[in-house]
């Protein structure tokens, strides 16, 4: 039966995470926005890494194809629910919680049981982007060459979230540039491996609590079985190598979308609280045209926010129930990314100098939200994914 309310258990999780965000993240939110690159030590209580031995047990259950399964509200819905609330607290700090990042998602998605045993408890960042290769991750030029029992890695990676604070890096490189996407593989490199060096930390518009690193690989040698997935290059078999790692994003995009609605909710909550003091309140009964311009704008933001949140929940619910959700994940990310950014910016505007002032956090949320419409697939990349699916186009037809 159609029901778009959260069940008891997720309700509880949401309240719990909201309290954590309120009590652990909010008090230090401004501090780490100002003290960019300082390690937020207050977050150690939130360490997400499984204890040794737990990693393998956390293996994913996949529903059997063709068998009608009972409706599930599982891991993916829990994940977007907690991410949303944590980002209501602070996006940058949420991204700085050990063990929650993309690198870990990739390891969980692709690693063999033996690799999960070795890497399952690490704090892994993901190094994909290069100075000359952003959204077009098929064009990366970092290389991996097998030399005896070791891979030798060379290249420069930028925009690595948690690249400094992590203890492990998952890095993408090509094993044969002439073979295109099929030759792109991902490798796990523990920190301290000679030849891997963090050379720069970025100074950013927002999410300053989260470190963003440039990592240089110079003849960096790692064991042969630190490759995620098969080392074999199968031409035409896109789904094996590159496709498989790209699939990681189908699972993480609803998460980034959840970040965006969490951040936007923070801005809306505070804005509505401030404007209530000025006599503006939403009653949800008179026409927007009979409301003040401020109220009308709040109604519209609430509508867009709700629509974005429901798209996120749908994408997560589909994943929980074993339905392919690549298009719906991108829809959620596209809508949440743009709506989250628009809402936080409008809230600053509606609250005037109070919105713009660093006395409150509204201006910070308006800076933080921008990246959420960019990383893990920009707005335009999401539109491209949705359009190709809808129109049944290849990447050669719809470029």
């Amino acid at each position, binding site marked *: 039966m*159609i029901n*778009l*309310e959260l069940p008891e258990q997720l309700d509880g999780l949401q309240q719990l995470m909201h309290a954590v965000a309120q009590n652990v993240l909010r008090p230090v939110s401004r501090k780490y926005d100002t003290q960019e690159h300082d390690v937020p030590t207050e977050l150690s209580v939130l360490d997400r890494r499984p204890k040794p031995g737990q990693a393998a047990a956390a293996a994913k259950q996949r529903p059997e194809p063709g068998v009608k399964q009972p*409706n599930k509200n599982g891991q993916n819905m829990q994940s977007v629910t907690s991410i949303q609330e944590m980002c209501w607290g602070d996006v940058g700090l949420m991204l700085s919680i050990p063990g929650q990042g993309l690198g870990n998602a990739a390891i969980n998605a692709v690693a063999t049981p033996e690799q999960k045993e070795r890497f399952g408890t690490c704090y892994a960042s993901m190094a994909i982007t290069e100075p000359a290769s952003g959204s077009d991750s098929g064009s990366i030029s970092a290389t991996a060459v097998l030399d005896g029992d070791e891979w030798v890695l060379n290249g420069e990676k930028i925009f690595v979230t948690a690249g400094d604070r992590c203890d492990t890096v998952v890095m993408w490189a090509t094993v044969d540039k002439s073979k295109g996407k099929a030759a792109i593989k991902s490798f796990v490199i523990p920190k301290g491996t000679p030849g891997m060096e963090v050379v720069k930390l970025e100074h950013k518009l927002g999410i300053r609590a989260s470190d963003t690193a440039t990592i240089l690989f110079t003849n960096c040698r790692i064991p042969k079985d630190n490759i995620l997935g098969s080392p074999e290059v199968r031409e035409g078999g896109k789904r094996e190598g590159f496709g498989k790692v790209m699939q990681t994003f189908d699972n993480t995009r609803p998460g980034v979308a959840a970040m965006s609605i969490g951040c936007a909710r923070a801005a809306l909550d505070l804005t509505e609280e401030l404007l209530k003091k000025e006599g503006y309140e939403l009653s949800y009964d008179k026409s927007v045209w009979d409301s003040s311009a401020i109220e009308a704008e709040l109604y519209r933001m609430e509508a867009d926010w709700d629509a*974005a949140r429901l*798209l996120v929940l749908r994408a997560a619910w589909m994943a929980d129930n074993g339905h392919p959700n690549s298009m719906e994940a991108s829809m959620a990310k596209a809508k949440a990314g743009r709506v989250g950014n628009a809402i936080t910016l409008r809230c600053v505007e509606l609250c005037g100098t109070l919105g713009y002032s660093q006395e409150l956090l509204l201006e910070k949320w308006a800076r933080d939200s921008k990246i959420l419409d960019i990383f893990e697939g920009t707005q335009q990349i999401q539109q491209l994914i949705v*359009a190709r699916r*809808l*129109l049944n186009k290849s990447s050669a037809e*719809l470029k």
Partner: protein
Amino acid sequence: MSEQTAKPLFDLNLTDEQQLMRDTVRRFAQTELRPIARKADEAAAAPSGIYEKTLELGFNAVQIPEALGGFGAPRSPISNMLLIEDLAWGDMSLAIGALSALSFINTVLDQGNESQQAKLLARFTEESFQAAAIALTEPGARFDPRRLKTKAAKRGHDGYVLLGEKTLVPFASDAAQLLVIAELEGQGPTAFAIDPKQAGVTVTTESYMGLRPLALGRVKLDNVEVPLDAKLGGDKPFDLDRLLDLTRIGSAALAVGTCQAILDYVKDYCNERVAFGEPISNRQSVAFMIADIAIELDGLRLLTYRAASRAEQGLSFKREAYLAQLQAADKGMKIATDGVQLLGGHGFIREHMVELWYRNLRAVSLLEGVLSV
């Protein structure tokens, strides 16, 4: 499930009955409504027999109590919403025409007392089509349902007298029953069941930008006398909020169905239309517009489903219905104008459906009080 939870799981699956109904209604919309939509628009009239045909779908009798000849199923805003969405995919005007009686039925079930239900609903279990409608909206640039100009007053001890003017009324003179919402002195907005053929009622046909097959009517009430039991709910005050909220869901569902029709249409058109040597859908400026139609449509659909589901579960749904209707008016119109744009000059001529959907979707912002789920 091992333990009973107070709140059900998040779920986007239809029940088996809803799925079955959906399959049937979609087929009907495709084979019976869509092919006649253009002709009905040009004629500003529904082709004869079409509403009789919709009776085959059997929706009117579903929720009517068994004692009155219905099936006695519980009130289901979700099922009604799905019905609106799927019929509107075929044609928004004909969907309103087909479901106007159901809207009347829903309101009488929600707010009428037992004897009124018996009196007013029995006719809808018969095999002939019975038109009925709710008359809420009043003429003028800024209608506000909270400031009704149509007035009702007690007439001695045996009835009421109605004075005022209603607009945008489906079927108007052809209806067997109208539910007129009027301001009753001292009691606020109140619903009265009237027969549009009775003395004092004058009906004139209106002409609008869209919704043309409905031949919507202006109903003038010049001291129309009705008996005491015409007042819906008896002594119980009429819950105008509930009617408004349920009809906001109805309007949103109309937009969802119509926007889905647009998406399906422009997808095919842009894949086939060749310019500069390739399908225009190979261009991002075209493809991204279509992607955005799909994204906003799905957001709107989920808002609408949520509001209906909350209504069905007895949860408060004022906020959700309001937001669904607001989003339907905003995004629905945006989708419609983009639909015309994507066809270029061809979108502007009446050979294609997009201009018709454009005209119909402009109505979503003013359909409060028309289609209750």
